[in-house]
């Protein structure tokens, strides 16, 4: 019984939240890794792109709520999501036309594009704060829990109640759908194949008649979709605050690099590696241990390895370890 209780506590505070967070990071890291694979630079504006997509979705959600449109038990934000994706795609394509295209024509060094993306990051950050302000925004509605603690306790008779928030369920389901569609697109469709060919060998792809501008445009559209979905899911699950999205840049890049920059599968694995380590190291293990350890061993403290404010340190340490021992990431990413 105690063992089951410990298991439920573990699922409650570590497994489920880490899976949801991992899915959010994986979606973000997929966007970073796609841009790296096709456009060949690290896009520092990605966190703020996520914030922009989430912001548009929130504004549309509010409009829908005001007009009485809702998705029943599901959050209204899911209905507003397509609008957010279209707006973000328009923004990214516009940025590409106005800013990045020039450097592509010049065949500028990747690091120049990274610096340019810093400027874009500033502008997007300013834009988001200008429109929606720097504060927390709440846009969640619908059913709160899939399983609440009380239902679970009544069902099973255990002391520890299992809680699955609906945002966690939605995050995981949406992430699985999005990733499945993305991999189907990349592996099965003509356009997806041309993207992978372009990523593997630009010159060869050009010789085979692949239109680079089309590949780039489609990449931006896919990245817009990924970023908006990731941003909205994160905002639903935690909360929307422009600055938090900027700070997500570090774990997202850590995920992409740990998995191997330029490798979509790696980005997903990397996202979960980072999320699970972050949650495990900053979780107060006392709740699980009190069920397992004999009474006299009961820990005094919270048995928390590091305070939650050090979660960046976790991403960082994993990043450094992977870079030291396997510089191309877990799955061989692109080097050079």
């Amino acid at each position: 019984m105690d063992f089951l209780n410990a298991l439920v506590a573990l699922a409650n505070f570590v497994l489920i939240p880490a899976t949801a967070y991992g899915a959010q990071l994986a979606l973000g890291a997929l966007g970073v890794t796609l841009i790296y694979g096709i456009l060949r630079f690290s896009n520092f504006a990605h966190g703020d792109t996520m914030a922009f997509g989430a912001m548009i979705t929130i504004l549309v959600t509010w409009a829908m709520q005001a007009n009485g449109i809702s998705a029943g038990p599901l959050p209204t934000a899911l209905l507003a999501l397509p609008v957010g994706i279209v707006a973000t795609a328009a923004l990214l394509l516009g940025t590409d036309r106005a800013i990045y295209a020039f450097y592509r024509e010049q065949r500028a060094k990747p690091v120049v594009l990274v610096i340019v993306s810093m400027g874009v990051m500033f502008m997007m950050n300013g834009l988001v704060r200008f429109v929606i302000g720097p504060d927390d925004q709440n846009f969640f509605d619908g059913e709160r829990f899939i399983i609440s603690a009380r239902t679970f306790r009544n069902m099973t008779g255990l002391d520890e109640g299992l809680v699955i928030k609906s945002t966690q369920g939605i995050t995981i389901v949406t992430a699985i759908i999005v990733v499945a569609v993305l991999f189907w697109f990349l592996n099965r469709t003509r356009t997806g194949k041309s993207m992978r060919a372009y990523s593997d060998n630009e010159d060869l792809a050009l010789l085979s008649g692949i239109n680079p501008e089309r590949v780039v445009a489609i990449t931006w559209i896919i990245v817009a979709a990924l970023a908006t979905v990731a941003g909205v899911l994160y905002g639903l699950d935690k909360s929307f605050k422009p600055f938090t999205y900027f700070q997500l840049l570090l774990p997202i890049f850590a995920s992409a690099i740990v998995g191997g920059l330029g490798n979509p599968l790696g980005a997903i694995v990397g996202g979960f590696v980072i999320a699970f380590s972050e949650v495990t190291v900053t979780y107060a293990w006392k709740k699980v241990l009190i069920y397992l350890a004999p009474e006299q061993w009961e820990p005094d403290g919270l048995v928390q390895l590091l305070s939650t404010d050090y979660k960046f340190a976790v991403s960082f340490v994993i990043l450094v370890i992977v870079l030291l021992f396997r510089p191309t990431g877990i799955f061989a990413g692109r080097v050079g």
Partner: protein
Amino acid sequence: MSRPIKNTLLFAAVLGLILSSGFYRSWNVSLGILNMGLISAIMAMGVNMQWGYAGLFNIGVMGFVALGGLAAVLVAMPPVPEAFAAGGWQAIGALILGALIIAAAVYLWKHMARGMARALAMVALLVIGFFVYRGVFDPAVAAIEAVNPAGTGYLGGLGLPVLIAWPVGGLLAAGAAWLVAKTALGLRSDYLAIATLGIAEIIIAVMKNEEWLSRGVKNVNGIPRPVPYEIDLQNDPGFVARMTDWGFDPVSASSIVVKLGYAALFLTVLLIVLWLAEKALNSPWGRMMRAIRDNEVAAEAMGKDVTARHLQIFVLGSAVCGLAGAMMITLDGLLTPGTYQPLRFTFLIWVMVIVGGSGNNFGAVLGGFLIWYLWVEVEPLGRLLMDLITAGMADDYWLKLHLLESVAHMRLLTMGLIMVLVLRFSPRGLIPER
């Protein structure tokens, strides 16, 4: 127009802008911009050493600046003997123990044969070491933080003159930079960037959480000053008499005199750093650095130790940032770890370097002054613009309220726009590298 004349004109124009704010706002504001401009110029020089001379992509400037600020507290604040007696030596001992455990792990890794045994031994050493370290460290911290938590609750500093904190800030930042460089240099440029971004966040997290060291979010105020206090000047009959003689109001004159005192100190540091940087850039060492930046493979083939040179310049540049960070906290008189934000302390410095002209020390200095002036002045200008746009709207119209409320966020947008425009139309900056 020849280059020296053009550059002189540029500097004159930017200084003119800063001084002009003295006429349309107040001399206090103008001198405030000048002082932070001087500090920003030094930070920009630090980043310029790393990026402009050597092509190293450091976006962890904030961390090194914050370490400099920590140095100001550790050097200049009066010590708290009770806290030291309660757990100071134990805490310091625990830190040394932690360092020894890491050193032992590194030693183990280098001296054991490859294989599973080595990996397991190292992991076991680190895990056991971590718990032993926490076992010694945690009680010490609790004891220190229990000593008068509202007033002190930390170890305090050494009680030395604050000017000593400036070079110490540089040393502290240099030490951290050495550790980062040892692990992350030699990696690809974007990996180094992410690594530095991470280390900066960690440094801030440490300063926010380790209350025994920096009082965390409780802040440290009343850091001693290198210049007299306004109130002492106002109570000094000699000063009051002299200012009244010259026809100034003693109260406002006192704050201007204090700001001028800071400006003189900062200008001295700026000129020393600039002189050293120029000497270094135009020496064989500086030429070697640029050669490495432009073609690492060729430089390596000529027998240059690229990694060692990168390490050197990374540490030097970070030290300059730390120095500026200590100066900034001295100017503010208080350390608030919660206010360190990457956009302000890392990316804004990058805008300064890019706009000023990377690779050129004078460019970095000019960029520091110009961008700081704009950072301060964009807000009132934006308010003016918004007032103009919304002039025709009703006073309670939501768009008008929203636009007026959001003026504060115009500066990020403007900075991004300036950076993108400069990169597009004048990628070498205002004063390009020679």
